[in-house]
């Protein structure tokens, strides 16, 4: 990936609406680069509910969210989009008609238009609201495991009740000095085999269970975690000495740097003119869940239409001298990237 790419349109967010925007732009002869914070495309459909059936996509009486994403990818493929996965859009700058979007890697993409299709914002770990936690992230507090060796001989607290929490408790129990698994209730949501293994390791004293408990506070010294306070659901609190906390509470979305893109906001949504989907910033558009206008409905099907609406004005911005010819896909033939006539 070059540090300074150029394209027609930068799409921020590879959820269903961002993917549909590739087609909407491609249909009008425009190339797209797509920036996605997660390591995979699909947004909420992939990250939150890939197996849930969706019933309100016209033409599909029922379709699993993951399947819808696979089909949107296939539909976008002829337009040869470039994906930047695991990258957050962190900064928007403007020089004349050229907009530049900087990514978390430091690379930038220059384009004539930006379509923000970021849903509820970029996904990241669902961070426990504990004072001082940010300063310990990556050193003592972790939301994923990169290198199990770092935990050898350490006292580790793992928080959460799903597969990640249980599986890492099991996997690290061989290496760690101690593992304490903290969860707000007795029941864990995990594969039956993992639950059996957890029971066995708990009986053998390799994993200590603290249920029903929740994280209450962190104590650190010189940037290193020393102890974690946990609270019983009925109130009593106690401290656990630990060098590492692994917190597995799923993922959460946040507008993050988009707040500073200069576009008009209402709480967590971007205000647009519904006739064009343009924001308060010229040539910056917002579609899908993140966009707001009167009577807005946060539906995939509405988002699809919003992307098509945006693409029309994007075209006028990019090709100010070319007339806009409305064309049905049936007239245009099989999708391929070609200059609009």
């Amino acid at each position, binding site marked *: 990936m070059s540090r300074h790419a150029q394209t027609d349109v930068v799409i921020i967010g590879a959820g269903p609406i961002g993917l549909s925007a590739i087609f909407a732009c491609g249909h009008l002869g425009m190339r797209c680069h797509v920036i996605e914070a997660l390591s995979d495309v699909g947004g909420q459909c992939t990250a*939150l509910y890939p197996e849930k059936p969706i019933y309100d996509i016209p033409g599909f009486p029922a379709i699993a969210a993951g399947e819808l994403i696979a089909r949107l990818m296939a539909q976008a493929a002829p337009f040869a989009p470039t994906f930047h996965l695991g990258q957050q859009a962190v900064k928007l700058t403007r020089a004349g008609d050229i907009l530049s979007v900087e990514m978390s890697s430091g690379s930038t993409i220059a384009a004539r238009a930006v379509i923000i299709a970021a849903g509820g914002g970029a996904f990241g770990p669902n961070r426990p*609201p*504990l004072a001082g936690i940010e300063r310990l992230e990556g050193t003592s507090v972790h939301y994923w495991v990169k290198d199990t060796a770092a935990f050898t001989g350490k006292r580790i607290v793992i928080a959460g009740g799903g597969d990640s929490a249980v599986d890492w408790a099991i996997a690290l129990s061989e290496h760690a000095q101690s593992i304490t698994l903290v969860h*707000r*209730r007795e029941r864990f949501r995990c594969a039956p085999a993992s639950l059996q293994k957890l029971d066995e390791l708990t009986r053998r004293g390799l994993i200590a269970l603290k249920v029903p408990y*929740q994280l209450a506070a962190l104590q650190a010294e010189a940037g290193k975690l020393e102890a974690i306070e946990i609270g019983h*659901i009925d109130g009593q609190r106690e401290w656990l000495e630990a060098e590492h906390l692994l917190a597995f509470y799923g993922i*959460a*979305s946040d507008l993050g740097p988009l707040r500073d893109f200069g576009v008009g906001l209402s709480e967590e949504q971007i205000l647009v003119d519904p006739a064009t989907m343009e924001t308060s910033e010229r040539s910056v558009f917002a579609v899908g869940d993140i966009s707001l206008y009167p009577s807005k409905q946060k539906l995939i099907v509405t988002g699809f239409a919003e992307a098509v609406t945006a693409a029309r004005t994007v075209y006028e911005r990019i090709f100010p001298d070319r007339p806009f010819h409305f064309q049905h896909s049936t007239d245009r033939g099989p999708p391929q990237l070609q200059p609009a006539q």
Partner: protein
Amino acid sequence: MISLTVLDADGISHTVEAKPGLTVMEALRAAGLPLKAACGGSLACATCHVIIAEKDFVRVGPPSEDEEDMLDQGFDVNRTSRLACQIKVSSDIDGLSIRFPRQS
């Protein structure tokens, strides 16, 4: 209209007039209270987590198993925690006292 008393994360009390038929999540958002409700009420996140006053909990009842599973992603969860998107506004909950989870 159904009246709800809401203690926000800063400890400020609000009285919300809620339209029957909405969910509590929708009613609180309509009243301008900062409830994220990221998934829009589809039981796919825990960002509309609220805590029902103990005395009122019997009026809303316990969460379903699916709701319990999502509450695992919440913080400051206790025995009377619910997701506001799963509670319907009706005369059964008139005068209900709820609070938002603590932020730290």
